[in-house]
């Protein structure tokens, strides 16, 4: 039997008028090739212009449209309505304060991301006139997987440690710290380690692995964090057992 309509059950919250959130139901046409994002856009364009949510690229690149679909952190531009039952529940990403409707406040992540210095720190002082700092395919392969992170925050939404501990730096930021630590052009490990190896860093991760299960880009943050623990432990022992060492 072909479906003609589907129901969206959408989390609504307006801080200017609401003390509590509520769920609003919308009946919309069913299209086999529609994404959940298309369904939301239909609501916005035809039924309720007040509905607020973030989206941009519509192709799993910008990382803006992450939401909870039936309780699962998901990019709405990567989820087809045909893969769900006739009623789809859409909520803002878990573990973040809700600004309005499906829009969450990302300030906490942004400050934590900045705190791990997710950029190449080059202390060699080689002048630009000497040309590019070349990298072999093998050196690129070491960190290439982790460059796929689009900061969509699905991993934070899935991480129980982040939900229980406000100080935890969290999966994506720790993954990006690891990505730069293992880049052959980077010299910033010691600068990042102060933060990454702290009580708020990799050691708070209890390895539930949910981050990697929900990651839409196959980045595998759980792997980056576990490898970060090994690097951090090695650094700790080297620092205490070989204090004359450079690292």
């Amino acid at each position, binding site marked *: 039997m072909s479906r003609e309509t589907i129901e969206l059950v959408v989390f609504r919250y307006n*801080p200017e008028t609401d003390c509590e959130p509520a769920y609003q139901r919308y009946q919309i046409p069913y299209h086999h090739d529609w994404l959940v994002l298309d369904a939301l856009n239909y609501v916005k364009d035809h039924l309720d212009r007040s509905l607020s949510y973030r989206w941009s690229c519509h192709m799993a690149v910008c990382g803006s449209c992450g939401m909870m679909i039936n309780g699962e952190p998901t990019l709405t531009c990567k989820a087809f309505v045909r893969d769900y039952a006739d009623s789809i529940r859409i909520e803002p990403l878990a573990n973040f*304060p*809700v600004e309005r409707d499906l829009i969450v406040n990302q300030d906490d992540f942004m400050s934590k991301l900045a705190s791990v210095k997710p950029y190449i720190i080059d202390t060699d002082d080689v002048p630009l006139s000497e040309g590019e700092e070349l990298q072999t395919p093998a050196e690129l*392969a070491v960190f290439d997987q982790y460059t796929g992170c689009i900061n969509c925050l699905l991993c934070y939404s899935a991480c129980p440690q982040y*939900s229980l501990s406000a100080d935890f730096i969290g999966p994506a930021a720790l993954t990006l710290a690891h990505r730069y630590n293992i880049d052959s052009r980077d010299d910033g490990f010691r600068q990042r380690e102060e933060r990454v190896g702290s009580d708020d860093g990799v050691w708070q991760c209890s390895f*539930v*692995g*949910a981050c990697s299960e929900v990651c839409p880009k196959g980045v595998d943050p759980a*792997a980056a964090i576990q490898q970060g623990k090994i690097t951090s432990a090695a650094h700790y022992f080297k620092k205490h057992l070989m204090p004359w060492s450079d690292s």
Partner: protein
Amino acid sequence: MNTGPLVRQISRRQWWLGASRYRRYMVRELTSLFIGAFAFALIVGLWRLSQGAQAFSAWLDAMHSPAGLAFNGIALAAALYHSVTWFNVAPKAISVRIGTFKLPDSIISGAHYAGWLLVSILVLYLVRV
């Protein structure tokens, strides 16, 4: 009126009931208790051995009782579950590369299983079962 951003509270006791992946994680963690209890029972056995043959025999009898056998069975099942789930996620922590080639996860996990098998054979040889 502006109530500002809405903070949704998380239950510190019941968060793990929310998704099957959290429940699987809690089961994995819970198995540690049975492994710890089994280790404690072994230490008690050593302590009873130090008290003489009669005391050790009583400990052996306790281990062979229906309750002792049930405890050992549960501890074995917990140890197997813990080991298998742990070996299966080991490739996340261990990344071995030779140039651009990354050693497949199955090889990393397989090496753990092979090590487990070798140690088991060694232990069985030592106790001559």
